[in-house]
């Protein structure tokens, strides 16, 4: 039983693994059987024993050791029983210092990020889901994979479904065309831009379109119109014969699909849930990638990981990250329990590693890291925090720290797999983002920073949305008004804003808006001048018409007169323009030139008309009318021009709708008792919106709002809503019932005892207790959690909705809209940047069977 020592030299004889050991044993056994005698294979058996016992240094699992020892014992016993000598037959102790080192680039785990198509060799444990999706795709043309954040839906599509299809999982699918996966982003239609070209180029081949993170359509795109067109486009593609559409969407945004019924229909037929992996699947996901590169897991490690992850639907990124860390800390070719313990076991690896990176920095760099990460988080609709992809150049400029230091911080974060870089055309064009939203939710340090910044992030989102808007209008519209500029400036100079580093575009918007505000008065004058020019244009046209007719002399006289008037007006306009400062003057000159060109066009059109007799007659009559009601006509023309120019002027000068008081100054976002009309409410885990008013069905007092505001996990409704920091302590009542259409109807919240609603309308008095209908042009007012107290107008009255020019903001939904008599006319439902939709109040009250509390 003497043990011969294992050395680097002798260990060369060992079998590489138990597999080869057993294979050799089997062939030896076969030969022994054939020979009918051990003596014939004795030398080989001795060699086998020697090699097998050396193999012990590679074997750490008890099962494998027992198996190897069992085979060694078999041969040594067989030799002994044949009276043949045998030496040492004890399996060598496990000693990983002899194991082969695995190169870094072999890493079989992806870390936090979703699996990409190129990771398909590392992707395991998802056979069920992938097979289900493929089965759907055989039958239909649309599959939607849903699941919570971190449930692995993107990976299923990118590393599961797509590679399988490319491998011919469906007959002929290896011949299909595959468009690069897109995410909707803030400009969803743009993301589908290349599809048509591909379809055409495909010449009859099936095209696969993948839309990852479909929820961005709701979180990043605020334009309902754009949403519908995008969805419509997908539905059209999916119903065509030559397309397969695969989307992924977070399950908490699934309900939003109900707002796009045609998509909802295809989606529910092709829906597949990315459920949590069961134990066997987890084992596969952990062990198979390792086995592929002969990486070993210390016995018990897989079990420990499974114990910690099982049943956690969103734990996959954390598991992958843990595995990646274990790989980093591997012992040559082995992931060890010791490393796992060092990582803190469980799913603490992410926290530990991120903390470690943070602590590894100098205090200065730590601050940079904090700001870099804060920049990679943004508030989505409903104040939820999500990941934000930013360009490196922009990041460097907006943070304003030493670029060297930022680069170093980014490098370290990337190396630790906490962030992910996507290559752009140049280094500045590279984009970076957190590897997975799991980081935002699971790293206590970042969560802590974000908690204190949530309000600021929401504010930043609001302002940056304005900046985006401004950019979309090509800087011609979307400027801030005086009050907004002042607010924004104050906010931007605050400590928290500096931490969050406002984007360049926002800073530019504020700068430009400030200039504009400073020249506002002059601008107003300028506008008057423009009006005068236009009036002249109209008059000039009239005179032109007259001139071509009888009474030429009179016409000429009138023309002279008009010319003089025009000259006077022009001179006056020029004088006014002279007062405008140079930059503004140039901008306005340009604008005036455009208007002039417009005018020329009109004149040309009218010149054509000139030759038509019927028109001539009308022109003559018009001349009489013009003469008679010159003043009146002038006013009318002014009004007509104003109406026509409203959208443009609104943006250049100021909004028709006007903010009267900021929401915070009327305490709409904080806890108020009694409750205020328009105050922030919501339900735990759900959205945040505004309270409309008090209603009653004769027995119970309710607060009225919209269904999706109180559709959170809990029935308990809180004020302020979750987006404004409301907690269980702020409960005001319980969700009672809602109208049939759970998106466009009212919802009732039964008020808890002692909770009352104050129907004060700020300086306008109190709600009258009556309802009213509206007509186009009516002036309206609104008190809302987002935009505060504003005034606006009815733009158009439709069957079931009132279009208004309120500039609504996030959290306004549910707000009371009332007229100048303080009669309630509707509930604010939603808005794009131009129009706000108000649901008329009467049908809502009727459906719910309630009346306003007088």
């Amino acid at each position, binding site marked *: 039983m003497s043990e011969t020592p294992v050395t680097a030299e002798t260990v060369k004889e060992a079998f590489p693994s138990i597999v080869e050991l*057993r294979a050799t044993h*089997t062939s030896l*056994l076969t030969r022994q059987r054939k020979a009918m005698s051990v003596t014939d294979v004795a030398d080989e058996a001795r060699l086998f024993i020697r090699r097998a016992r050396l193999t012990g240094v590679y074997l750490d699992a008890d099962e494998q050791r027992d198996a190897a020892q069992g085979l060694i*014992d078999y041969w040594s016993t067989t030799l002994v*029983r044949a009276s043949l000598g045998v030496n040492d037959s004890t399996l060598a102790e496990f000693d990983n210092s002899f194991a082969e080192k695995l190169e870094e680039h072999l890493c079989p785990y992806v870390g936090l990020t979703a699996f990409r198509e190129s990771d398909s060799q590392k992707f395991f444990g998802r056979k069920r889901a992938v097979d289900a999706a493929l089965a759907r795709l055989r039958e239909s043309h649309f599959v939607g994979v849903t699941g919570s954040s971190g449930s692995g839906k993107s990976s299923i599509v990118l590393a599961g479904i797509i590679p399988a299809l490319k491998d011919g999982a469906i007959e002929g699918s290896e011949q299909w065309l595959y468009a690069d996966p897109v995410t909707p982003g803030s400009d969803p239609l743009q993301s589908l831009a290349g599809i048509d070209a591909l379809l055409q180029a495909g010449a009859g081949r099936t095209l696969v379109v993948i839309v990852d993170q479909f929820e961005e359509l709701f979180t990043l795109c605020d334009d309902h119109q754009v949403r519908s067109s995008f969805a419509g486009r997908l539905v059209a593609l999916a119903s065509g014969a030559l397309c397969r559409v695969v989307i992924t969407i977070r399950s908490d945004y699934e309900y939003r699909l109900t707002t796009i019924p045609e998509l909802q229909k295809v989606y529910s037929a092709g829906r597949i849930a990315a459920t949590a992996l069961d134990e066997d699947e987890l084992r596969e996901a952990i062990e198979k990638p390792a086995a592929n590169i002969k990486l070993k897991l210390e016995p018990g490690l897989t079990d420990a990981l499974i114990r910690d992850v099982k049943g956690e639907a969103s734990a996959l990124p954390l598991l992958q990250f843990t595995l990646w860390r274990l790989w980093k800390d591997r012992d040559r070719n082995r992931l060890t329990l010791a490393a796992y313990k060092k990582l803190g076991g469980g799913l603490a690896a992410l926290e530990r590693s991120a903390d470690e990176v943070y602590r590894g920095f100098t205090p200065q760099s730590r601050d940079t890291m904090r700001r870099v990460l804060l920049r990679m988080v943004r508030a989505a609709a409903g104040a939820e925090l999500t990941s934000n992809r930013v360009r490196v150049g922009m990041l460097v400029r907006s943070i304003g720290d030493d670029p060297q230091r930022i680069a170093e911080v980014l490098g370290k974060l990337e190396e630790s797999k906490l962030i992910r870089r996507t290559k752009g055309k140049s280094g500045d064009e590279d984009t970076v983002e957190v590897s997975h939203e799991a980081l935002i939710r699971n790293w206590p340090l970042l969560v802590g920073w974000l908690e204190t910044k949530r309000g600021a992030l929401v504010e930043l989102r609001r302002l940056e949305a304005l900046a985006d808007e401004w950019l979309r209008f090509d800087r011609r519209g979307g400027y801030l008004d005086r009050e907004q500029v002042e607010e924004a400036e104050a906010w931007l100079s605050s400590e928290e804003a500096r931490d969050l580093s406002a984007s360049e575009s926002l800073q530019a918007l504020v700068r430009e808006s400030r200039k504009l505000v400073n020249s506002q008065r002059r601008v107003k004058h300028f506008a008057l001048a423009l009006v005068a020019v236009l009036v002249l244009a109209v008059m000039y046209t009239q005179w032109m018409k007259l001139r071509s007719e009888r009474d030429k002399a009179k016409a000429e006289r009138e023309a002279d007169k008009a010319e003089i008037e025009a000259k006077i007006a022009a001179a006056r306009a020029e004088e006014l323009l002279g007062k405008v400062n140079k930059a503004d003057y140039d901008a306005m000159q340009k604008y005036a030139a455009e208007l002039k060109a417009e005018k020329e066009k009109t004149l040309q059109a009218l010149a054509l008309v000139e030759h038509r007799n019927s028109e001539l007659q009308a022109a003559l009559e018009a001349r009489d009318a013009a003469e008679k009601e010159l003043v009146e006509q002038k006013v009318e023309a002014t009004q007509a021009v104003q109406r026509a120019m409203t959208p443009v002027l609104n943006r250049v000068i100021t909004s028709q709708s006007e903010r009267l008081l900021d929401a915070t100054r009327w305490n709409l976002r904080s806890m108020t008792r009694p409750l205020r009309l328009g105050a922030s409410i919501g339900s735990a885990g759900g959205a945040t919106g505004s309270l409309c008013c008090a209603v009653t069905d004769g027995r119970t007092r309710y607060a009225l709002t919209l269904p999706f505001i109180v559709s959170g996990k809990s029935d308990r409704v809180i004020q302020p809503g979750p987006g404004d920091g409301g907690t269980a302590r702020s409960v005001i009542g319980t969700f009672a019932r809602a109208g049939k259409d759970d998106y466009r109807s009212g919802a009732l919240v039964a008020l808890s005892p002692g909770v009352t609603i104050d129907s004060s309308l700020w300086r306008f008095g109190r709600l009258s207790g009556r309802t009213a209908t509206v007509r186009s042009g009516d002036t309206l007012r609104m008190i809302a959690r987002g935009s505060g107290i504003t005034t606006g107008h009815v733009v158009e009255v439709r069957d079931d909705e009132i279009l208004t020019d309120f500039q609504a903001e996030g959290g306004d939904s549910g707000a009371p809209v009332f007229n100048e008599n303080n009669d309630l006319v509707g509930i604010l439902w939603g808005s794009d940047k131009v129009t706000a939709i108000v649901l008329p109040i009467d049908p809502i009250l009727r459906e719910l069977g309630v009346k306003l509390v007088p």
Partner: protein
Amino acid sequence: MVGYTHGNPSIQGSMSATTPAEYPHDVFVSYSHKDKAWVSGVLVKALRDGGLRVLVDEDGFAAGNSSITNMTDGVLQSRRTVAVLTQNWVDSEWSQFEGMLSVQQDPTGARGRLIPILREKCNAPPWLSLRTYVDCVNDATISDQMAKLVRSLARPLGAPDVVRTRPVGEGLRTMSELISAGHVREKLLEYELRFNTIVGLIHRLDAFKSVHDQLHHVQLHVYEAILRDAPRIADDDTAVDAIDYYSNDLQRAIGTLREIDARPMFENMRMAWIDTLAEAQKALAVAVKARDEKGVRGAARLLNRVLANEPARIDARLGEAAANLELEAVIDALSFVCRTGRELGMAAEKVLSLEHARDVMEALEENLGILVRGHRLWQDVEVEMRRIETNISAKDASELEISWSDLLKMVTVLWASPGDWVQPLRDDARSVDEAIAAGDPAQMNRFFVRFRKKANTRFFTVDTNLKEQCEELGTIGRPLAEVVEALK
């Protein structure tokens, strides 16, 4: 010779009568016609002279039957079959015999009732190795071999579990008394050396057997028991107590082994592995105190190093000693004094006791052969099963698949001799067969484990029987030594 069975109640009492008595013939002779001369001239004649009812195809068979039917009929109608093993027989008859056995797995039990007569060195089929050959290669000893064959053919079917040896002691004492007769002493002096060897080998056998027993005990009552209780040691006090007890048990076994090791006969082959056991025992004691499961397993692994190899080694020595045990010498000597006693007009009672002693010695020799060979075969089976067991799981049973047919062949030989244990083991074997046919590793694993447990139980019985037989053998050591003493 028929009287032998009736006249020796002590022998009969020790035999288990398991066969229906009514066979028309005592023995069927299977042979190749090329060997006809010797068979008719020597073998059949000797058997018939011995009073046996012999069935042999030259005169007993109906004409026109195919030879397979003939052979089957012959086997079926006779209590035993003797096969005259020559290359001719192997070439011409063996395949038929095998064919007959293969029908429904030897329904006639022919395998167990076959006695091979080795007439010529030839490639005998492996399972025959279990049987005791009657060696007729050497014509010089043929008459003695025939007498022995006749006596064993006259015995009822079924090997005794253990042959009791008390009559041998009496016979040997009678022998001592006769030594004073001059030519008896002279004749017996020829045996002196061999008697001495036998006495030495009996001691040795006893020692090996004791060592083997200790190891067997350690395997069953220490090693396996430890593995069973180890997982509970951290949080179950009874497991701690139990393992503590196994540890003490191990210490006792080590004490016994050291005592055996100290015997003079082991002078040149000290059992160094006892130190490994002691080391294991120390490690175990420490681990129990610390309630350290890993430590307990480490100790068990040390034990396993000994248990994996040593029983086979001991067994090899045991077999070697048994093979060298020329009990023939005692039988011959007893035959001689028996004849002489009769010639000298010794009291019939004494002659009878000598005859009785000789018969028991013959039965003992045969039984010991069966037991040693059986034990060796079982040990082979155990080695195979142990290997398979360490390499099989519910997911991968490939080790079983590649070994099963060989293992089954080995076991088939063993269950040729009848017993209650055979059927259940066969049932499990069939289940394993089915699982392999179905390619279901989980079932293969499950039924193999069942199979192994039953086979182990049987092995244990064989082991116990051998041990007892060795103990019985030990009782003739002293009277034999006395004979040797008297000769001086």
